[in-house]
């Protein structure tokens, strides 16, 4: 068995025991080293690793407030928040975005436009680990398919978010405006802390004006997340305060009537309650579906809206500045009476034109043969240009401007209308300042029929007519009727701030208003065609706004002919003796106010005074993306 040597077993045993003893010493030493290592990590460096561990798991998350709702005057919901399931991606957790998008597209349909938007959002500034939405409005089936495949899609989440929804998106497009994703421009003007967690911000309209009230206050929560960033539990929470609900003066039924009255035509309608200044309707056609803008409109859809000849994005009611034409004649008449330039009984012969004294310059009446002998009353009913040429010449631009300014021309009169333009109330002083040119007598004459430099918006025409309707009282136009919460609406919108327009004689108001009634009800009134069937007294004034130039672009012959036609205008209020509603109507290229604009105005006042015939139906499409 052995290799020949005699074995000394006890010596071998002792050798082994010595080696075992060495091994035991080494085992004890090594164990000591390892325990020392853990002492270092767990006792000496404990604080450091506790910090790292907490930073690993605990995250502070902002909790966005729920945006306030918007109702019309009858409590009909105009802007609400709907839960929408969307597919979001946390870019930090994705190694190959292209591959991931490819995989997602194998599972659910993602239109190229959405991918394009998603890539843009990726480039925008955002908080780390913030999910970026890729697809909105997931269906149940799509969510189920995604849930099954989620393990193979790291960084992909399904999120229920409250997304703004406008049930009457197309009807309210220019009034409510819309919310959209906070872009870099928005980010500069907001408090980043207050908007932490908020994804949408009011971009235009009411949504923009009352952004602060609608938004609410942000809340916070400390959450524990796992290694993949998924929230496991909430450790601590401070609830957000939801935004305040707004109630507008708007009546969505009237809004729809006005919208339908304009039909396919481009134009605007503003309806005001003259007793309060509350805006009952504010329409600009064509409208557009604001819901498309909420989740991000695709480039193509946007370009289509932006480049459309009909300019659907353009708010004609508040930003469309047109020569007011003859619609200002009643106010000029009051100015003439107040300044003693004319009297109620003074007669002027209208030969069909007006020749400037000491000049060969001739200004033609719209009716070539003239109206013959006319009083101021007749001049309003028949809309005699000649009479007003003469009066304007005699008053001069400065004096006309002084009086018209009281009604609200040339300034922004509304309290909470986003981006309203002031129009232009020309005067010698204005012309010198802006054009550095002297005021010619011809300028006064043109101003007398609301042409020349004179520009006004449909909103302004309604507001100024409202001053007339209420016999001089000035209530600034406003959308907000009531706000829920701590701040009463009157704090946000101080009531009448301007003193009423006063006339020397109260009879002047009735004189002019009677003339406006005869515009509609009189046998020779310019708007007499709308009088049949009227069961209330309506006062109105037609107007025609000349189209001076076309803005660039190439049009075909027919289009030129169509778009060169004058704009039709009509202002009205009813009932004439105690007005409940003031309406201004603009129909672009509608031709004459009497034929085109006046019937539209009557549909609106009919609905308001006689009641609404039909039950309102929701117009907007249920899913904003469905029809893209």
């Amino acid at each position, binding site marked *: *068995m*052995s*290799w020949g*040597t*005699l*074995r*000394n*077993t*006890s010596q*071998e*045993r002792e*050798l*082994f*025991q010595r*080696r*075992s003893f060495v*091994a*035991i010493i080494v*085992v*004890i030493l*090594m*164990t000591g080293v*390892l*325990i020392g*290592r*853990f*002492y270092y*990590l*767990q*006792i000496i*460096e*404990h604080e*450091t*690793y*506790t910090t*790292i*561990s*907490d930073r*690993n*798991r605990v995250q502070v998350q902002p909790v966005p407030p729920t945006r306030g709702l918007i109702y019309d005057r009858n409590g009909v919901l105009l802007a609400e928040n709907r839960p929408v399931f969307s597919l979001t991606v946390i870019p930090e957790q994705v190694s190959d975005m292209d591959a991931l998008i490819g995989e997602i597209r194998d599972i659910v349909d993602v239109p190229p436009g959405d991918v394009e938007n998603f890539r843009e959002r990726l480039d925008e500034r955002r908080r780390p680990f913030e999910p970026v939405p890729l697809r909105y409005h997931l269906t149940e089936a799509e969510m189920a398919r995604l849930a099954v495949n989620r393990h193979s899609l790291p960084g992909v989440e399904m999120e229920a978010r409250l997304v703004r929804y406008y049930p009457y998106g197309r009807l309210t497009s220019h009034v409510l405006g819309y919310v959209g994703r906070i872009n870099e421009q928005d980010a500069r003007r907001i408090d980043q802390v207050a908007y932490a967690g908020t994804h949408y911000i009011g971009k235009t309209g009411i949504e923009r004006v009352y952004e602060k009230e609608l938004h609410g206050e942000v809340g916070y929560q400390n959450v*524990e*997340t*796992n*290694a*993949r960033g998924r929230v*496991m539990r909430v450790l601590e929470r401070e609830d957000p305060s939801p935004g305040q609900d707004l109630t507008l003066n708007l009546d969505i039924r009237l809004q729809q009537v006005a919208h339908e009255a304009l039909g396919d035509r481009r134009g605007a309608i503003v309806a005001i309650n003259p007793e309060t200044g509350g805006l009952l309707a504010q329409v600009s056609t064509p409208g557009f579906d604001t819901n498309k803008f909420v989740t991000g409109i695709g480039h193509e859809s946007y370009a289509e809206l932006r480049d459309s000849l009909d300019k659907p994005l353009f708010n004609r009611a508040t930003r469309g500045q047109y020569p007011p034409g003859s619609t200002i004649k009643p106010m000029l008449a009051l100015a003439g009476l107040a300044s003693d330039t004319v009297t109620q009984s003074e007669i002027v012969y209208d030969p069909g034109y007006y020749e400037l004294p000491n000049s060969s310059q001739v200004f033609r009446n719209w009716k070539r043969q003239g109206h013959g002998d006319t009083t101021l009353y007749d001049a309003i009913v028949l809309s005699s240009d000649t009479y007003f040429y003469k009066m304007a010449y005699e008053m001069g631009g400065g004096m006309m401007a002084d009086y018209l300014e009281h009604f609200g021309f040339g300034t922004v009169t509304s309290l909470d209308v986003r981006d309203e333009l002031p129009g232009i109330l020309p005067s010698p002083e204005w012309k010198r300042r802006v054009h550095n040119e002297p005021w010619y007598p011809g300028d006064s004459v043109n101003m007398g029929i609301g042409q020349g430099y004179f520009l006004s918006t449909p909103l302004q025409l309604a507001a100024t007519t409202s001053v007339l309707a209420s016999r001089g009282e000035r209530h600034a136009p406003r959308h907000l009727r009531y706000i829920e919460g701590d701040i009463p609406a009157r704090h946000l919108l101080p009531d009448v701030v301007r003193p009423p327009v006063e006339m020397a004689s109260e009879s002047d108001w009735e004189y002019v208003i009677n003339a406006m009634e005869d515009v509609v009800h009189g046998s020779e009134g310019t708007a007499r065609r709308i009088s049949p069937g009227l069961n209330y007294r309506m006062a109105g004034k037609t107007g025609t706004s000349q189209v001076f130039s076309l803005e660039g672009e190439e049009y075909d012959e027919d289009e030129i002919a169509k778009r060169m036609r004058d704009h039709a205008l009509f202002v009205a209020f009813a009932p004439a003796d105690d007005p409940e509603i003031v309406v201004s109507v603009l129909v672009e290229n509608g031709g004459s106010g009497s034929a085109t604009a006046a019937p539209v105005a009557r549909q609106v006042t009919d609905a308001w005074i006689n009641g609404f015939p039909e039950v309102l139906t929701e117009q907007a499409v249920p899913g904003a993306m469905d029809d893209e």
Partner: protein
Amino acid sequence: MSHEFVRQIAFEPDHLNRRGGWMSRLHLDPWLLLLLFLIMGGGLVVLYSAGENGMAIVQSQALRIGVGLLAMLFFAQLDPMLYRRWSPWLYLAGILSLVLVLLFGAGAQGAQRWLALPGLPRFQPSEAMKLGVPLMVSWFLAQLSLPPRLLPILMALGLTALPGALIIAQPDLGTAVLVIASGLAVLFLAGLSWKLIMLMVAAGGASIPMLWLFVMRDYQKERVLTLLNPGSDPLGAGWNITQSKTAIGSGGLHGKGWGEGTQSHLDFLPEGHTDFILAVLAEEFGFVGVTLLLVLYALVVIRCLYIASMAQTSFSRLLSGGLAIIFFMYVVVNVAMVSGLMPVVGVPLPLVSFGGTSIVTLLAGFGILMAVHTHRRMLES
């Protein structure tokens, strides 16, 4: 001789055998068994928290422990002489399997480690060599008078290096190192001279650059680099080490409490139920828990070395001593890896990590040790 005989009688732990009479009849060592039960019981408690499925994983592990205990019981019944007789054949069979693996082996992740022979379950011959090499080297050296001379030493090194080289060729550097270490451990216990030990340590140190240049794969180099600077790639290769150290460090003195470990429960810690289970224990039971476990391991090794020194034959001594040192080596490698002292190598924490083969092999090894301790002859041959 008579003096030796008396000494043996005196050391023969009759009092223990008497106290646990049924244990002695079953050839079990009560002290070792108690320590193993403490470690495995504690392991199940940690595993309950580390696993995601609650009791399911604990039951599955308990079943494996049961199988392992049966294996231990079985191996404890065999006479050490049997092991000695089978050693060369086991070794040869192991070498043959390793060659077969290289020729026909089934691969996973670029390495051929598994052998599927008809009629046998799939197994890793390299795992078997963890027992095969100490058996063979013990068998070889036990025939000589010790300490061994140079030629037998070289032959013993050859017996160790052959399977080592075959395993490196698979390639599986980690297992190869452990297999080679098991052979060296037996050599050390056999009385390898300190001069030669120093020489081998120096040669080992000098071979590190050679290993780096010619043997180590890129992923292995990466693990080493990661160990040296875990911050260089905190989300990639350094993730395991960083998260493991965070779990350990945040546990503090008493730990976060059972089931309260955030690092493991929120999935920051990878492999929490297998290779990194010690980090879970450290996070939830703190420094106290870790120290207790390490002391238990040390006691197991010391008990095994005591059994070895009490053994009657040279073969039994070398084999059981070698197994004790190998067991401790596994512990050190895993603990050093988890605490960031060594590169990440796939070595489970003995008796605690979830996994079947490891626990059965280990308990079988302890069965051999118990066999050595309980099968005694009155006189040496």
